[in-house]
């Protein structure tokens, strides 16, 4: 699988709770229970990525990328400011794994993150075109917004997939 992400000059890595809208390549490394939400606008070769950590913001606004509800609405608002319209935007979800064996449920927050992201996308009327979620495996995801958008997922077992 071709992965020239790290040779891109403008590529950005988004840490926990960060989000970004733009035309540059974007990625997150080592997704566990977190969810990478990628919104892609096919018409404009433009997209956004959020590295979501928890399902609900409960009124917190300082880090919109950290929570499923605020991340989705902020990405959409920023993309609309760049000229995107909602019906041209398609979503991809990656991550939300349950990483730990023998664990109390508190560490396995991945499933709740996925459900929260799906819910908020449904409320916003955004369709989900690809999902690589759940399971017990870490993933890294790389996204190139140019053209139809290209997404590569690298799994902890060494396998890669292009969505």
């Amino acid at each position: 699988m071709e992965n020239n992400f790290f040779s891109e000059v403008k590529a950005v890595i988004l840490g926990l709770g960060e989000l970004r809208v733009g035309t540059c390549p974007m990625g997150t490394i080592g997704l566990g229970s977190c969810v990478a939400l990628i919104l892609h606008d096919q018409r404009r070769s433009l997209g956004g990525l959020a590295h979501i950590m928890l399902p609900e913001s409960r009124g917190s606004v300082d880090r919109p990328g950290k929570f499923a509800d605020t991340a989705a609405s902020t990405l959409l608002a920023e993309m609309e400011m760049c000229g995107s319209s909602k019906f041209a935007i398609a979503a991809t979800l990656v991550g939300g794994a349950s990483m730990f064996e023998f664990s109390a449920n508190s560490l396995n927050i991945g499933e709740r993150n996925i459900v929260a992201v799906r819910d908020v996308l449904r409320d916003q009327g955004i369709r989900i075109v690809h999902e690589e979620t759940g399971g017990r495996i870490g993933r890294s995801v790389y996204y190139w917004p140019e053209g139809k958008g290209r997404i590569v997922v690298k799994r902890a077992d060494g396998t890669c997939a292009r969505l």
Partner: protein
Amino acid sequence: MELDPIQMDALAELGNIGAAHAATTLSQMLMCPIDMTVPEVHAVDIADMHSYIGNEISAVVVFQIQGEVADGGYIVVSMPRATVIQLTNQMLGMTDTDREIDDMDRSAAIEIGNIMISAFLDATAELLGIVMLPSPPALAIDMTHAAFESIVAQVAGDVNDILIFNTELESEAPPVYGSIYMLPNTELMHQLFHMLERLMEPIS
């Protein structure tokens, strides 16, 4: 999160005592000397966590800190895959290092983590004059950063930076290498500082 140098030092010293005891138990188990780095304490913004926690495949053994303190802090042992295989081999008298991780390795990783962290918490709790116990362990053999995300999600729901205490243990023969991390939540951190400040007060 604002930490003054004295708080940083006090916390590093507390961790140093804990890690030294953990290193001793590891040394006794392996019957070899173990080197230990000077502990580091960092207040890290969650968005920068990927600069501190690597993403190679490791065995990550996680414990919640319980006892006479606020629940919700975590303590973690992470070991590269090769180290886990090496440790299992050492304990079972095997020599094949070129193999996949199996159930025996998982069990060994948990057990070694358990013994090291029990020693760590025993020593630090004794210094503080309280009781601290590890919860039953949870194990992930995966990208280190991916495993840490679940822990950070627990301690950093309301705050945007976390305190990471880190020390590294190493032996040359057998070639093993591991790190101990402590990630207190806000409440536990304040409790620790409060107890450490009391310890440092001059005796009147």
